[in-house]
């Protein structure tokens, strides 16, 4: 299934500190993938003009996924069944703070640089700092090879990541400076934005940047009445078997201890109550993830230095 084909109706909900829903939805946008004929990019070694992925010519097409009963990797449907997560902090020597997360086959790395001088200064920089995010996919991260040039989907994800992190960082403590968050997806096996949010907030905490709270991400895929939590790549891109309404995906960025939602992205078409039920499931998924993240952070802090003697 090529990465982004078919109708994507993306509606994005952005909220500042507390839950206040300002929905701005884009018109239906049709993405058609061409065989990747990239514009002539003379800053890189160039291969042939046009090349197709072998997955287009498979002799036996991949089997259709069961839409009820246990999921492909043994997890349960309609339950908050999140993939086990492997997390490490402080792996990149050059970065102020870094984090690496592995959920199933999804592998993500995030580095934080700063606070450093802002190149472009404007009025708002005087009072509070500026957060910049950059999310990229490695060309080998998806079943279909991506190009080195950052596509529009990567830019969109960077923007959503920025909206999810911005409310949680105490930017007023870093006037006139800029904090850069760079996320690199090494392998995309589903719910990339959710794990990127978690990994980015962990890297910020590891960098010693003051934050109101960690930000955890969780996503679900709604298919008719049943839903799957933390969907894998195939579940995310599977066309639905039963064509009823309530088809779509939902990603929530959640501040666990302040119990606030800082970012919500949903695509597809769902009824009101399905959406709110989905948000509640995602919040439950985030709470499941919270202890693992705290423990990883604690390990990184202890490794950095033993606790000061209690005065």
């Amino acid at each position: 299934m090529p990465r982004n084909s078919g109708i994507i109706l993306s509606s994005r909900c952005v909220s500042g500190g507390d839950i206040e829903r300002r929905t701005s939805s884009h018109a239906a946008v049709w993405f058609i993938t061409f065989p990747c004929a990239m514009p002539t990019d003379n800053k890189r070694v160039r291969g042939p003009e046009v090349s197709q992925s072998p997955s287009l010519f498979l002799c036996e097409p991949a089997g259709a996924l069961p839409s009820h009963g246990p999921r492909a990797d043994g997890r349960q449907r309609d339950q908050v069944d999140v993939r086990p997560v492997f997390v490490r902090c402080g792996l990149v020597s050059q970065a102020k703070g870094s984090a690496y997360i592995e959920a199933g086959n999804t592998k993500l790395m995030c580095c934080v640089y700063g606070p450093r001088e802002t190149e472009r200064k404007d009025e708002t920089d005087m009072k509070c700092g500026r957060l910049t995010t950059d999310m990229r996919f490695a060309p080998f991260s998806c079943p279909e090879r991506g190009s080195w040039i950052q596509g529009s989907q990567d830019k969109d994800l960077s923007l959503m990541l920025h909206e999810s992190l911005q409310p949680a960082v105490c930017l007023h403590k870093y006037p006139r400076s800029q904090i850069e968050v760079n996320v690199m997806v090494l392998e995309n096996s589903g719910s990339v934005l959710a794990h990127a949010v978690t990994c980015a907030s962990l890297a910020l905490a590891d960098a010693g940047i003051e934050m109101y709270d960690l930000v955890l991400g969780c996503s679900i895929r709604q298919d008719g009445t049943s839903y799957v939590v933390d969907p894998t790549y195939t579940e995310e891109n599977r066309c639905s078997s039963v064509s009823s309404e309530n088809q779509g995906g939902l990603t929530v960025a959640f501040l666990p201890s302040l119990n606030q939602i800082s970012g919500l992205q949903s695509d597809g078409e769902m009824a009101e109550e399905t959406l709110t039920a989905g948000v509640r499931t995602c919040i439950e998924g985030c709470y499941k993830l919270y202890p693992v993240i705290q423990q990883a952070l604690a390990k990184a802090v202890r490794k950095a230095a033993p606790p000061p003697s209690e005065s």
Partner: protein
Amino acid sequence: MAAGFKTAEPLEYHRSFLKENCRPDGRELSEFRTTTLNIGSISTADGSALVKVGNTTVICGIKAELTNPTVEAPGKGYIVPNVDLPPLCSSRFRPGPPSEQAQAASQFVADVIESSEVIQTEDLCIERGKLCWVLYCDLMCLDYDGNLLDACTIALLAALKNTKLPEVTISTETPEVNLAKTRGLHIHKHPVSASFCVFDDSILIVDPTAEEESLKTAQLTVVTDEEDRLCTVHKPGGTSLSGEKLQECISRATARQREIQKLIDKVTRSVKTAQ
């Protein structure tokens, strides 16, 4: 006050160490940093490897795609290496088009592949004149602490050894890809690179860190294969180097080639037994 001395006068700080034939991180002048290798960790790539030389981390993912060969070389496939230095690996790289260092590294890796003939592009041809493979070797630096070229060559070699190509048959007009039966690539040569830095036109150090690289007056990278033939002697300018010092570097590079080949074979065997 040593920390102050290090940032205020970096060259003096390093010279004081080099006088006693050691370096700030405790290594001798001809000692490489610990090198660790991890093969096949990316399942969406046809072949992948992650290398850590000290702190410098490079991941190489190889994706194979189908295309038709050129008119001039109907029997040959393509191999397209590219090195990327994202803003993630060090604060000196800005987002945007690749910097000169990234492009020079890409050109270096392309030259090493071509000069050492690590794989024959004829092996990548499926149907002469009609269909062939193109191997996109994408190398990405995750943590830049100097000596990028060595880490890239090791990552590329390990990833090529880990690559599995599905079998393709052309019965009707369209090709048939059978993912069940896969074959590995035939690796003809094992090129391994060793990088050196020259300090004050005289002192020669191996495997420089980012700091030492910023203070160098010249840089030399020697690539040798298992038959001690030189594939590349890459010295992009800088102060001149005498014949004896060049000979010293070449002998150190051949020793390094043995070490790395043993490491790659050991890790490949352990991955095979694990499967």
